[in-house]
C-alpha cells in the first residue's frame, strides 16, 4: 500500500466556462491574468481553471463574472489543474465528467437567454419547465374515437 501525500491542500479549484459571441477563452484568460493576484490560472478549450486560496479565488471569480455575466458559468472542481489522475493525456481518453460538461454546454444559450430576461426585468413566468406527466386522453374523447372507428 502506497502512502498518499496530497498537494494543493487548502486550495479550491473552479472551472470557468465561457460561451459567448463577444469573448473567446483566450481573451478571457488575458483579462483574468490582469486581475489574478497570485491565483493559478490554466487556460482550457472551454475557458479557464483557477486555483488558489478560497478568498483569492472568490475575489477573482467575482471579477471574472463581471466581464460577461450572462455568458460565463462557474463550477467547483475537486482536482487541481493538470492533475495526471484526470488528465486526458494520461488516461488515454476524456474523464467521464467531461462528457457531462459537453452535454450541458449545448444548453447554456438557453440559460443565457433566461439570465438576460431576468436582467431586463419585466414579468417573469410563474411556471417552471415541469417534469410532470402529460395528461391522459379524456374518456369522452376516447369514446368518440371508438364510435368513429366502428
Amino acid at each position, binding site marked *: *500500500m*502506497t*502512502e*498518499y*501525500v*496530497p498537494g*494543493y*491542500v*487548502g*486550495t*479550491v*479549484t473552479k*472551472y470557468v*466556462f465561457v460561451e459567448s459571441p463577444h469573448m473567446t477563452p483566450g481573451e478571457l484568460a488575458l483579462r483574468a491574468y490582469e486581475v489574478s493576484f497570485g491565483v493559478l490560472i490554466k487556460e482550457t478549450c472551454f475557458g479557464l481553471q483557477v486555483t488558489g486560496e478560497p478568498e483569492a479565488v472568490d475575489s477573482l471569480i467575482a471579477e471574472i*463574472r463581471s466581464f460577461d455575466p450572462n455568458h460565463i*458559468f*462557474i*463550477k*467547483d*472542481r*475537486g*482536482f*487541481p489543474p493538470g*492533475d495526471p*489522475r*484526470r488528465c486526458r493525456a494520461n*488516461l488515454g481518453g476524456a*474523464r*467521464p*465528467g467531461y*462528457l*457531462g*460538461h459537453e*452535454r*450541458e*454546454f449545448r*444548453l*447554456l*444559450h*438557453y*440559460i*443565457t*437567454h*433566461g*439570465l438576460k*430576461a*431576468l436582467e431586463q426585468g419585466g414579468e*417573469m*413566468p410563474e*411556471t*417552471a*419547465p*415541469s*417534469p410532470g406527466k402529460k395528461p391522459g386522453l379524456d374518456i369522452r374523447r376516447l369514446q368518440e374515437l371508438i364510435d368513429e372507428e366502428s
Partner: protein
Amino acid sequence: MAKVFIYPATSLILSDLVARFGHKPLGAALGIRERIQTAGIDSPPLQITPEEPKRGLKYAAVEVPSGVRGRMAIYGPLIEEAEAAVIVTEADLAFGCMGCARTDELILFSLRQSGIPILELKYPTNDEEGVQFVAAIKKFLDNLSNGGEA
C-alpha cells in the same frame, strides 16, 4: 445563504445558478476535493479507498453494489448537510460521479425523505423554457433567503 444540494451533483448549470443567486451549491466536487486533499492510502483516481463503500453502508445495505455504496459515501454527508435541493429529474447524460442510475435513484429518495424544500424541474429545450428555468430557480432560492419554503 443556504446550502443547496444540486442534482445532478455534477451539473455546471445548477452549480452556477445557485452560486450566482447567493447560495452554496453542494455538488460532487466538494466531496472529491476533500478526499484529494486528505492524506492516506494511495487510491487513484478519486482517492476513494475500499473503506468508502464500507462507510456507504450507513446509506445502503451490504448487498447493494460497491459502486453505489462508494458514491453514497460522498453524497450521504452532503445530503445530510443540505438545507434545500434543486433537482433536474430527466438528466439523461450525467456521467462519472452521477453515472450510476441506482445511486441516482437512492439520492433522489434520500432527498425526498429528508423533508427539505425541493424544486424539481427539467432542462430547458428552448429559449422560453430557459427563461422559466432561470426564473423558477431564482424564485425558489429567494424564498430560501426569506426563510420560507418554495
